[in-house]
């Protein structure tokens, strides 16, 4: 199919309530101006992208997140996954907002006043291992014995797993009462404790902050926490049937 450089498609960031106020200059994916395609009560947050736009760059990923965060600062927004491109505004109005109208309205109501908070916790490697050696004489005795390397490693892995279980329970008890929903992600290194997203009522964010702060202060000798949010509910939105 022949394409010319003048043809454009429509990149979609997310869906929010229509009120005609969404506009940002030059800050969207591929540097484009951000606007809206409206259909009834709904608005898709969009920007034009060249038809040949196929390769995302780091700054495009940041733009996607930033545009959504900006809209989220003043209203409920349902994020789309990065990289959603429609052939034109009509397709956005029809295939996205039209076909899914009732479902999107329902989702916007459901996520009204809710925010995603992302928490990562990782053990401080040397501090955790020192704690294990100090608390578990069997492991301390195997240290430095070359023939027992695998047994030692297995015992340490078990000791780390037990501490992770205990610490996850402590986290659940501390944060659980403030959480509407939770999404856990796979751990990627042996010394990670948790990668979680929590769905929290905006009114409870202050409380969540304080509990997180107390927790991190208490555990600072052994666990490092990072915490991001409030964010739009990226990890919790889904349409029926994909």
């Amino acid at each position, binding site marked *: 199919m022949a394409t010319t450089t003048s043809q454009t498609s429509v990149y979609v960031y997310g869906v929010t309530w229509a009120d005609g106020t969404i506009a940002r200059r030059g800050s969207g994916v591929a540097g484009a101006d951000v606007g809206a395609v409206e259909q009834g009560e709904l608005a898709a947050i969009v920007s034009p992208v060249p038809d040949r*736009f196929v390769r995302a760059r780091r700054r495009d990923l940041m733009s996607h997140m930033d545009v959504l965060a900006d809209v989220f600062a003043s209203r409920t927004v349902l994020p789309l996954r990065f990289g959603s491109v429609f052939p034109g505004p009509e397709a956005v109005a029809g295939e996205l907002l039209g076909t899914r109208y009732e479902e999107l309205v329902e989702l916007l109501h459901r996520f009204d006043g809710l925010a995603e908070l*992302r928490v990562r916790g990782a053990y401080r490697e040397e501090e955790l291992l020192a704690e294990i050696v100090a608390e578990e004489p069997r492991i301390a005795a195997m240290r430095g014995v070359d023939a027992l390397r695998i047994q030692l490693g297995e015992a340490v*892995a078990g000791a780390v797993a037990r501490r992770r279980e205990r610490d996850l329970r402590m986290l659940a008890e501390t944060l659980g009462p403030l959480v509407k929903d939770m999404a856990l992600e796979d751990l990627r290194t042996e010394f990670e404790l948790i990668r979680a997203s929590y769905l929290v009522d905006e009114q409870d964010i202050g409380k969540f902050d304080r509990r997180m702060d107390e927790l991190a202060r208490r555990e600072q000798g052994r666990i490092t926490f990072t915490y991001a949010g409030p964010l739009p509910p990226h990890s919790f939105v889904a349409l029926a049937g994909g």
Partner: protein
Amino acid sequence: MAVATHGTASNYLQRAPSPSSLADVVDLILDKGLVIDAYVRVSVIGIELITIDARIVIASVDTYLRFAEAVNRLDLTQTEAAGLKELREGGGGDGEEKKKAKGFFEGAKEAFSGNGKR
């Protein structure tokens, strides 16, 4: 950059309004959000791969050997000294500590940033 906001001015909790590293942003927006299958077509080759590469199998002989090596390498007197120093200074998180804590998985992290530039 992680900045303390909402009254969380501490050096033991990194707090930011939104994820700051490329890997964290990728986690947030590439795997998550509403999907309208027929129309997703922006290529993110090279970015998707790193999230899979970095995933590790927790229970393996390889892992056991790395754990054993880390425990055997552990200098307990040094760790205790570092702990005391921290207590005196009222908190961890200084540059040197962070560098030390990185040791074990430097390889995985380098693979991350290396691919991220593509």
